[in-house]
C-alpha cells in the first residue's frame, strides 16, 4: 500500500502539469493590448488591472476610471516587448485575460500578421479575445475613460455581445479571425474603433470595419457598409432598419429574424451569385400618420426590402470594384459548391469576385405591428370598443 502510494506520488513529478504557480498579487494581469508601429519598431501598450483596492471607487462605481495602468514599450518582437515591460510593470505580465487587441492602422497596413504570430503560437493567449483596428494611437484608446466597467478593454468587449440589438458592427474573435485567414481565401475583417467626443467626455465608438486582404489592411467600410457586410455574412441577429415613405415620414423596423443564403453558380470564369435575404420584423416605430393596414404593410415591406438591397449592393460594390477583396461568404460558398474547379480558379479568385454578377433578392415581412394600430390622435374615430356606449 505504502509502496503504491509512493510510486503514485513519484509519478506525479514525471508527468507534465501546470507548473506556473504564481500568486495573483505577483502578476500583472493584462486586459487589453495595443499594438502600434514607431520607428520600424513595435510599440506595445498594455492595459493592466490596477490591483490596489480602492474602496470608494469599487463600491460607488464612479466613472470607472483610474482602475487601470497603461504602460508602453518599444520592442522588436511582441514577446521581447512583453518581457521588457516587466521592467516597467515590476511584475510578470499575464496575458491570459487579454480580451482586446487594438492594432493601429499604420501597423495593420504593414505586416501585422507576423506580429500576431506569438499570439497564436503561445498557449497563454485566449483565442476568444477580440481584435480591433484603430486610426488613433492604441494607447489612447486604452486610456479612454470608461462608462461602466473598470477597464476600457473590457467595455469594448462587452459591446460586441450586443449584436442582438444592433447590426452596425461586425464582431469577431481572434479564433474566427485565424479561421478566416487560414481558410481558402486569406481575407478577413476586423471592427474599427475610434475616439469620439460626447459632451465633455471622450468615449470610444465602434464604427466601420477594416478589410484585410493577404495579411494587410487594404481599406475600410463605413457603418452602413458594415451593415451590408453583416447581411452578406448572415450575421444579423437583430437591430433596426429605417425607411422613409415620404419626406419626414419614417418607419423603423425592428429585425427579429434574418437569414441570408448565398448561392454561387460558376460558369467557367464567370461567377453568378444569387443572394437571398429573408427578414422578419416588428413595426416598432411609425412616424407616419397612416393607418396600419395591409396595404401599408406591403408598402413598408417593399421599402425595407429595397433599403436592405441597397445596403448590400453598396457594400458589394465597394468590395468588388474598389477593394477587390472578398470578405463575404461568396468565396467560401463557391469553394464548397465547386471544390474541383476551385483549384483552378483559386489564384484568380480576386478577379473572379470583382467581375461576379450578383443578384440580390430581399424579402421583408412584418410579422408583428406592435401594440397599437396607428399613431395619430384618434378623436375622429368611432369608439367601437367603448365599454360605456351610452355615456359620452
Amino acid at each position: 500500500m505504502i509502496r503504491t502510494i509512493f510510486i503514485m506520488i513519484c509519478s506525479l513529478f514525471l508527468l507534465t502539469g501546470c507548473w506556473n504557480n504564481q500568486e495573483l498579487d505577483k502578476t500583472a494581469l493584462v486586459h487589453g493590448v495595443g499594438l502600434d508601429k514607431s520607428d520600424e519598431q513595435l510599440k506595445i501598450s498594455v492595459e493592466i488591472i490596477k490591483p490596489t483596492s480602492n474602496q470608494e471607487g469599487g463600491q460607488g462605481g464612479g466613472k470607472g476610471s483610474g482602475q487601470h495602468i497603461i504602460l508602453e514599450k518599444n520592442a522588436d518582437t511582441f514577446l521581447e516587448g512583453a518581457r521588457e515591460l516587466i521592467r516597467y510593470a515590476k511584475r510578470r505580465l499575464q496575458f491570459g485575460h487579454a480580451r482586446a487587441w487594438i492594432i493601429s492602422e499604420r501597423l495593420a497596413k504593414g505586416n501585422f500578421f507576423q506580429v500576431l504570430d506569438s499570439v497564436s503560437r503561445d498557449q497563454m493567449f485566449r483565442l476568444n479575445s477580440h481584435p480591433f483596428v484603430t486610426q488613433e494611437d492604441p494607447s489612447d484608446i486604452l486610456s479612454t475613460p470608461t462608462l461602466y466597467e473598470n477597464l476600457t478593454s473590457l467595455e469594448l468587449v462587452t459591446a460586441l455581445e450586443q449584436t442582438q440589438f444592433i447590426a452596425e458592427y461586425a464582431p469577431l474573435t481572434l479564433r474566427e479571425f485565424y479561421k478566416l485567414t487560414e481558410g481558402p481565401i486569406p481575407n478577413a475583417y476586423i471592427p474599427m474603433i475610434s475616439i469620439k467626443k460626447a459632451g465633455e467626455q471622450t468615449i470610444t465608438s465602434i464604427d466601420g470595419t477594416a478589410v484585410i486582404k493577404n495579411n494587410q489592411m487594404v481599406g475600410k467600410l463605413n457603418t452602413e457598409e458594415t451593415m451590408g457586410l453583416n447581411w452578406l455574412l448572415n450575421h444579423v441577429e437583430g437591430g433596426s432598419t429605417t425607411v422613409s415613405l415620404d419626406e419626414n415620414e419614417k418607419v423603423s423596423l425592428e429585425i427579429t429574424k434574418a437569414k441570408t443564403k448565398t448561392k454561387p453558380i460558376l460558369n467557367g470564369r464567370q461567377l453568378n451569385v444569387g443572394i437571398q435575404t429573408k427578414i422578419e420584423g416588428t413595426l416598432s416605430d411609425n412616424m407616419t400618420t397612416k393607418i396600419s393596414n395591409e396595404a401599408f404593410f406591403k408598402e413598408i415591406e417593399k421599402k425595407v426590402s429595397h433599403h436592405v438591397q441597397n445596403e448590400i449592393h453598396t457594400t458589394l460594390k465597394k468590395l468588388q470594384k474598389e477593394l477587390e477583396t472578398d470578405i463575404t461568404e461568396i468565396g467560401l460558398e463557391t469553394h464548397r459548391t465547386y471544390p474541383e474547379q476551385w483549384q483552378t480558379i483559386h489564384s484568380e479568385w480576386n478577379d473572379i469576385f470583382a467581375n461576379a454578377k450578383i443578384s440580390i433578392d430581399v424579402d421583408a415581412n412584418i410579422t408583428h405591428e406592435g401594440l397599437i394600430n396607428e399613431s395619430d390622435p384618434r378623436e375622429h374615430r368611432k369608439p367601437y370598443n367603448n365599454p360605456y356606449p351610452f355615456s359620452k
Partner: protein
Amino acid sequence: MKRYANIKKLLKNMKERQKEGNSNDKWQPFSTNINENEKTLRQQLGTSQDVMFTKFTIKLQNGDRLSAMLVAIDGLVKEDAKRDNVLKPLIENPLQEKLNKDLKQIQERLSTKKATLEDNLSKAVFQILKAKALLIVDGFNNGLLITIEGFETRAIEEPDTEQAVRGAREGFIESTGVNVSLLRRRVAHPSLRFETIEIGKFSQTGVTIAYIKDIVDLDLVQRVKHRLDKIKVDSISSSGDVEQLIEDHPYSILPTIGNTERPDKAAALLMEGRVLLLIDGNPFCLYVPHLFLESFQNIEDYNSRPYYSSFIRLLRFLAFFISISFPALYISVLNFNKSLIPSDMIVPLIQARETVPFPLAMEVIMMILMFEVVREAGVRLPKQLGSALSIVGALILGDVSVSAGLVGAPTIVIVSISYIAAFVITPIADVTALIRIGLFIASSVFGSYGLCMAMLGLLTHMVSLTSLGVPYMTPFSPSHFQDWKDGIIRFPTKLLKQRPKSIPNKRTTRMKSLPKTGDKQ
C-alpha cells in the same frame, strides 16, 4: 531462532490472556449452606456500598423456618418491586408443602417479570451486577435470579442529531431494553430477532444484534456475530468503539458502519435487510452494511413528495462536491489557471489579494483551520458562552480580518461556503473537512492537475471500501441500476417495489400489490 522463541512466548501469553478474559464463565457451585454462600458472595462483591444483602425467613406451614437472602444492587432494582413482588409473598403467607429439591415453589410464588434458576455462583454474581436480584435459600445449592430491574433512564426525546420536520419524534435512549421495545413496536413480527452478546471484561456491555430473519442475509448476521465474538477487551465505552473494532477498513477516513438515533430510521433499515447493533448505554445504534449513498439520504426524503426530496438529494451531492473541492478549485484557478477566472470577477479578486500579506495557500489554510477551531469551540462550549463565540467568530474572523487586510474577502466566502455546504451532509461532515484539506494541499502544490489526481485517488479508495463485505459504493460501483431509483433522486414510492439489491437480502419484493392509481371503487 531466538526471535522465533520470543514470538512463541508472545503467542502463549496472548492465549493465557484470552483465557483470563473468559473467566466470567468460570464454574463455581452454590453451597447448600446459606452462610457459606453469603461469605462467598461478600468476598466476590466486596464491601461496595451499593450491594444490598436482605436477610429474611420463609415460613413453612409445618412451622419450619428457612432463612433466605436477597442480594441486589441498590439503584439497579426497583425498591417497591423488591418489597411487594418478592419479599411480601414469601414472608406473609407460609408455604404449604414441604419444599422439593429445587426452588420451583418459590419461583411460582413470585409475581415478577422473570425468575430463573441459576446453578453457577460466579455467573450469578455478574447477573446481580446486571440489575438482577439473587434469591438464595438455606439448604438449596442453587439460586433464583429475579428480574426486577429498575434504574433511572432518560425520557424518550426527539434526537438532536437527526431532526425531521415530518417524522417520528422518538429517539433511542441509553437503555437497550427501551430501545428494543421501540423497535419491536415498529416491527411487530416474530421474525424480528434480538441477540445479545456481552463485550468487555469489566464493562460487560450488552451489544444487541437486531435483524429480521426472513429478510436479512444470514451470512451477514453470522459475520457480525463472528466479529463481535472475537472482541476480547476490558471495556467498550461507546458505539464508536464497537464500530471501529468490527469495521472492514478501520484505517480509512470514511466510516463504513452507519449510526442512527432514530428508531423509525432503524426500523426502515431493518426492513432493507440490515443488521442493527444496539449498544447498551449508548443512544446511537449502529447498522451494517452502510453505503456511501446513505450519507445523502434522509428519513425525511421518504415523507415528503418525491420531487422535492429528489431536488434536495441532488443539492446534497452538489454540496458534497462544493464542500470538498471549493478551496482547492479556488487556489488552482487563482494560482495556476488564471485564464479560467471570469473577466468580470478578476478585478475584485485581484484587489482583495493585493492587501493580504500571506501567500494564497497560507491564507486559505489559515482560514480553514480557524473555521475548524470555531466549529469545535461551538460544539464543546457551554451554551451560555455561545453568544461570545459567535461574536468572536463572526466579527473578528469575518469582518475585522478583512478590513485589517489580513484575509481577503473572497477567501472567507470560499471557505465559508465549503463549510456551510458540509453541514448539509451531516453524516460525513467530519470526513469532508479532512478531504477538503487533502485536496487543497494537492492543488496548492500541483494545481488543477493535483486536484484531479487527488480526486482520482479518493475515488479509488472509496471504490475499494467494503462494509462487512458489501461494497461501499454500491449501487454505483458495482452498479445496480434498479437501486438508482432511490439513489441520487428518489422515485415516487409506488415505483419502489423492489427491495434494494445493493444490500444482500432474501426477499426481493417489498410491495406485493398496490391500489390502482385513480381507482374509482
